[in-house]
């Protein structure tokens, strides 16, 4: 495992440190409770909720690309509430400074010392809204925290409290005056999802539910931080066979030679794919990863890392997003699934 979102150097490991792995039944019970919470606030978005949960347990970061008002923040808040974590939200604007994110050292005149004022990033779940509106400098500050799991300022390291998950949102519609995340920074997010509009039935139900007030208010935490740590451990213990590993590698390598891609998936993408697949397997109650887990995650985990050729991008709507997803599905469909048969079949 890489040191991204590292758990180890945290002095507060007593609360969120490595818990004993759970049995799969317990794991499913807990995740089921979280999912129930999530689904009670966002209707008809099972896939987005599941992916958010996967990212949480796989210790990754989530990039939500969608138009405003479809429930990005609600999803993040529900996730935070359900696991009993702190949540902070940063609304990115062009004049946001890096210190607003990470924190700032202020000279305390009574103590004659610099005192560290924590920034918004010091929370378990950080919602970075409209991350593409901030200047690249500010974006970089956040991404550094995501990568390192700590804030370094004036020679002092301030570790972030695990679990630490950044849910960044991007609005793909308004592009004027924004700084879209470059490829290198998008690569740090484990999963990119787009919420999409709810269907008519879900939207109708939402109307009824919201009459009496925000459902977020009724949510209670169903998992504490220690249980979350145990869940993370459980997911890590899921077995990945050699056959599945080589399946993943062949898919990733196929993206690097695909004629419609200018840039294929990175090795980090490979790692993220396997880690997410482990969680997905555990969510399904399996102690091992099957190719189906990989197939489910290929598009959400790899699509945002890939740059389509100009032709492929212009051929299809959605700025190439659709073309990339289609090509990835085609790669999955044409990659033979590993199946070890006896010699004399």
């Amino acid at each position: 495992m890489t040191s991204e979102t590292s758990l180890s150097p945290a002095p507060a490991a007593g609360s969120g440190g490595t818990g004993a792995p759970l049995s799969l039944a317990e794991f499913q019970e807990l995740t089921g409770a979280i999912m129930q919470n999530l689904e009670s606030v966002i209707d008809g978005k099972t896939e987005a909720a599941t992916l958010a949960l996967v990212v949480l347990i796989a210790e990754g970061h989530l990039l939500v690309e969608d138009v405003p008002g479809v429930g990005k923040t609600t999803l993040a808040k529900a996730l935070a509430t359900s696991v009993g974590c702190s949540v902070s939200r940063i609304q990115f604007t062009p004049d946001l400074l890096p210190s607003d994110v990470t924190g700032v050292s202020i000279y305390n005149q009574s103590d004659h010392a610099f005192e560290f004022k924590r920034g918004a990033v010091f929370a378990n779940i950080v919602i970075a809204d409209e991350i593409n509106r901030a200047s690249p400098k500010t974006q970089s500050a956040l991404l550094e925290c995501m990568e390192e799991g700590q804030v370094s300022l004036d020679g002092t390291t301030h570790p972030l409290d695990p679990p630490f998950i950044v849910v960044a949102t991007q609005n793909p519609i308004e592009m004027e005056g924004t700084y879209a995340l470059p490829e290198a920074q998008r690569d740090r997010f484990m999963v990119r999802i787009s919420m999409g509009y709810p269907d008519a039935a879900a939207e109708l139900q939402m109307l009824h539910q919201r009459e009496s007030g925000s459902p977020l208010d009724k949510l209670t935490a169903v998992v504490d931080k220690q249980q979350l740590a145990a869940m993370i451990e459980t997911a890590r213990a899921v077995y990945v066979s050699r056959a599945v590993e080589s399946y993943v590698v062949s898919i990733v390598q196929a993206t690097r030679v695909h004629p419609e891609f200018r840039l294929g998936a990175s090795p980090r993408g490979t790692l993220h794919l396997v880690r997410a697949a482990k969680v997905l397997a555990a969510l399904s109650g399996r102690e091992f990863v099957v190719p189906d887990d990989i197939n489910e995650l290929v598009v959400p985990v790899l699509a945002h890392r890939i740059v389509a050729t100009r032709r492929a991008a212009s051929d299809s709507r959605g700025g190439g997003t659709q073309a990339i997803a289609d090509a990835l599905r085609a790669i999955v469909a044409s990659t033979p699934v590993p199946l070890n048969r006896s010699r004399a079949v």
Partner: protein
Amino acid sequence: MSAPTALRPPSAPPPERGGRAPSAGRAPGGTPPALGSFARRRATRTGSWKSTLAVAVCLGIALAGLAPLLQGGAWWIATMSMVVVVLAVGAVLRGRGAPEVVVVSVSAFVWGGLVVLLYAGSTLWFLLPTFSTLSDISGDLAAARQAIAEQEIPADAGGAITQLIVMAVGLIAIVSDELATGLRTPVLSGAGPLAVLAIAPLVNRTDPDVPVYVLAAAAFLLVVWCSSRIGAESGRARPPSHPGRGRVRGGRNPGLAVGIAAVAVAAMVALPTVTPGLTAQSLADDSASSPFSSVYGAGIDPTIQLGRDLRRNDPLLSLSYTTSASHGLYLKMVNLSDFSTGIWQPETPQGAESYVGQDFGTPQGLAADVPTAEVTTSISIATLRAEWLPLPYPTQRVAGLSAPWVLTPSSLTVTSDQAATQGQNYEVTGLSVEPTAEQLAAAGSVIPVALSGFLSLPADLPAVISDTARQVAGSAATPYDKAVALQQYFRSGQFSYSLNAPDSSSYSGDNTQMIAAFLQDKTGYCVHFSAAMAVMARSLGIPSRIAVGYAPGQGANSVSDGAAVYDVYTNQLHAWPELYFEGIGWLPFEPTPGLDFTPPDYSLPDYAQAGVSGAIGSTRAASTPSADPNAARDLAQNVSGTQTPEQEALGQVRGWGTVAAVLGGIAAIVLLPWFLRALRRRSRVRRIASDERPATLAWTEFEDALDDHRVQRSAGDTLLDLEQRVHESVKLPATVVDRLRREVEFEQYAAPGSASAQTRASIRSELLELLSALSSGASSQRLWLSRLLPVSLLRRRRAAAPTRSLVP
């Protein structure tokens, strides 16, 4: 767990990964589902008519290779009409997008209809074949065979022969076209034209007709090219399910193909000129080194061909004759007299003169006081093709010969430098030599100098031969007595007649070692007996030679002008020794036992003792039953050539037997895939009990069964995808499929050492349940399709070997 994976809501449709991305172009089954199967096939078959046309051209050229064998051109036109009609039907159907099965069966149906319409006399309402239709056709084919066997080359392409060619080439056309156009295996389709091409050199035994071969090769390349281009012009990409296949199948590298073909043709043309001995004839003959193959024509070759002809299953009528003699006659064709090299060689003709009807002259060594009687024989040759004229010995005159013939007066043989015997009818005036016992006893005391060549023996003659000869001759006083003792030795019952035993090359060529081995084994046929007796006679000082020709033949079945007609078949080819006694001349002996030929009277021991002075062979009919145990079998063998009513019935039975055998063969071929598939299934089900991955084995069998039932699936399917796909198209117990799928996943992807959830027995019962559900749920059409054409037999499996670990 209700949903297999969390991301997939239970009610959501399965991920249709295949075919969702037409722009990607790599999805399997990438043709839009809106197209019907007919339209889809049409799209993938554009240009298939070109391949069919190329097959027709190729067959037409190959058929032209038969021109040296047949007269006229009507047969070619008739055959090509059949080919064109049959192929056109197939091409039209293909163009309309019909499935291959329909194309082939309709073509075959049209073929059968045309055959019935054109060639069967008795049908019901013009078209419906009846029982007698079949027998008509099989009778026609038998007639064709007869016609081919009897006729000289080039044969008159009569109705029967044309019918045979039309039927056979029509079928070949269907098969070749299916191979080239339908299955797109053009290389295999070349077998059809090649079979047609091969006939002429095999029958005619001449060098191949080079232009025909070059043209046929070019046409074959055209077939390959057109076949590989099928579907390439449709504007859309090749069927994307096999992105790499199209390129592998050939035709993409015409330069290489043309190069290989050119080298092959060049080698074919150049080889015979470089190596003069290498011709189709020498290749076909397994004794290319034998001197006889160049001496004799296609008719009989005394040593090799004789044994081969004797072993024929279906003896052909060689000739028939009537004679004024009271018994059948030995008809000699050639003498083998030179044994100085250890190999019996035909005599070298000396003083040969063109024969224009003159007298042959006095037989060698015949004294004037030996009683003789004139015998006239009328010989009519049927199928025999040879350079040597069959004549009874000694002959005085021959009348009625056509074509130039050459007489060798010293040996009284008549030859021609072309194999011109076929169709000859001629009258022979010969002598019947009837020496008295006293004359026999006195004969042979001196040997003329001119005959010393008939005593020559190779220096390395094995001692066993002369030792045996001396032993056998024993106390016999005169040369004649010694000869009688030798014949008696071979006929005494120690020796048995067998066509099969001495079939190895060391035994079948006549040389000294062969004779020694024959004296050891005491089994063989006429060649061995006659050679052994001739060599032993020489070692005793009696001049000898081997006569090759025909045994007297079948006793009179019919009578012509008051004389019995003898029919002589190929299996009556014979070799016998002739021994020379000064004063009487050459006398034939018959050492070969087990046949129904009886030796001449004078050669029997009691002839001399009883002092009978009468006619030779006064009473012996050729078919006198003999006491020899082998006689019955040989009798049956000889009889099979005749046509008594019983045997005609037998022939019909055999004809029907052939029909039954052909039908059985077709049935066997049709049922073979079913059988193989059932074997494979059985073996897999059995191996579930022992295989290290029993569930995977069961799954493999399940997948194959799905393929056989033509359930669409894709190479990129995961187990779960397949499970969902299956439920879309066939009705199967969902829980069973699910259980089996889970077990396979467990087997494949779980950590080693995890405890398996199911026993082998439950896996086996799940598989059997799925298989039976699959067949009971299928329509009968699908079911038979899956049984008779199990496509899973054709599929090769790649072993998905895990690479080294790249992910921690």
